[in-house]
C-alpha cells in the first residue's frame, strides 16, 4: 500500500466524511419527509385542509411514521432549535 493510500485511509477514518454526508442526507430526507407529512395530515394538528380526504389513501404507506411524526410536531418548541441542530457539524 502506498503512502498516499494510507494517508487517504487515515483521513477517511479520522474525519468520517462518508458517514457524515450520509448523516446529512438522512437528516435532510427526514426534514423533507416531515414536510410531506405536514402537507398530508396537518388536519391532525388542527389545520383544516380541503385535501385531507385524498391524503387518506397514502395512509397505508405513511401510517407507520404517523405516530412519530405527530410526537415530533408536538414536541417542536422552536424553529431555532432545529435550525441550530442542522448547523451542528458533528454527526
Amino acid at each position: 500500500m502506498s503512502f498516499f493510500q494510507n494517508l487517504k485511509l487515515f483521513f477517511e477514518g479520522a474525519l468520517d466524511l462518508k458517514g457524515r454526508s450520509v448523516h446529512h442526507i438522512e437528516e435532510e430526507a427526514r426534514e423533507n419527509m416531515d414536510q410531506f407529512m405536514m402537507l398530508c395530515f396537518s388536519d391532525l394538528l388542527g389545520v383544516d385542509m380541503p385535501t385531507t380526504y385524498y391524503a387518506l389513501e397514502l395512509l397505508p404507506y405513511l401510517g407507520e411514521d404517523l405516530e412519530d411524526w405527530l410526537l415530533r410536531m408536538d414536541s417542536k418548541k422552536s424553529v431555532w432549535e432545529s435550525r441550530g441542530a442542522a448547523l451542528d457539524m458533528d454527526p
Partner: protein
Amino acid sequence: MSKILFFGGKGGVGKTSCSSAFAIRHANSDKKVLLVSTDPAHSTSDLFNRPIGSTIVNLRSNLDALEIDPQKEADDYISSIKDHMSQIISPIILDELNKQLDAARVSPGSHESALFDKMVDIIISTSDNYDMIIFDTAPTGHTIRLLSLPEVLGAWIESLLRKRRKSVALKRMVDRIKGTEDQPDPIVEILSRRRNNLEKAREIMMNGDNLGFVFVMNAERLPIEETKKAVDLLNKYKVPVKYLVVNRILPESDDLFWKHKKSMEGKYLDEIDKSFSVEKVFKVPMFIDDMKDSTIDKMAEYFKDS
C-alpha cells in the same frame, strides 16, 4: 353542442325537473344521455318514481341515470384503504389508524371530496359512451366550491409529488452509499394516478365547448341576485354559462293578486334579459300538474331549441 352540462341554481327553483326535461328532450332526438344527480336529496328517483342508485340504470330509450351517494362513495373509499392497510401495516398501530379513518368518514369535507372524485370518475369512464352527460347539482354554493377543487387539488398533488420525489432521490443517495436496493415508490404511483385522472377529466371538459353550465331560476328577486353572483364566479373559473332557464312563469289571470304578481314578473324577466349574456334563455311556464314521469314530457318540449 355541449357534451357535459351542469345544472345549477338556488334551492327549490326546479333544477331536477329542468335537468330531467332537458335530458328527455335530447334523448328523444336520438342522443345517448346520462343524467347524473349529485343532490343528496335525490329527487330524480322521486320524479321518475323508481329507485335509481349508484349504478347506471336505464330510464327510457337513450336515457340512463345515476345518483351519486357521497356517503356510500366515502365509505367505499375508506373501506378499501382499511383493507389495503391491514395487509401492509403492523396490527399494533392498525387500531389507532382505523380510528383516524373512521373520524374522516363522517367529517363534512369528506362528502364533498367523495362526490368530486365520483364526478371525475364518471366523466372519465362514461364520456365515450354518451353524447351528453347532464349533472343535476346541489344548490349553487356547493357547485362552485366543487369547481374550485381541481385547482386546489392540482396544486396540492404537484407539491406532494415534488416533495416525495425529493425524498425518494435523497433516499436513493443514501441507499447507493450503503449499497441497498431501491424500489419503485408506491406513493409517487398513487399521486401520479390521481393527477392523471384529474388531467384526463379536465381535458375532456376543456375540449372545445364540451363544458357548459345551465342556471335555473325563477323570475323573482333572490334567485336572480344569486344567479348573478354565481355567473360572475363561474366566469372567474372560465366555465361558460350556456343557458338560463326561467322556471315557473306565471299564467295570465284576472285575479288582482296574480295580476300584480304577473306584472312584477314582467319586470324581472326584463332584468334577466338585460343582465345576462348567454346563448339562450328558456322560459318555462308553471304547470298545473306535479312534475312526474308522465308529465315531464310537456316540460321537455320547452327545450326544443337547445
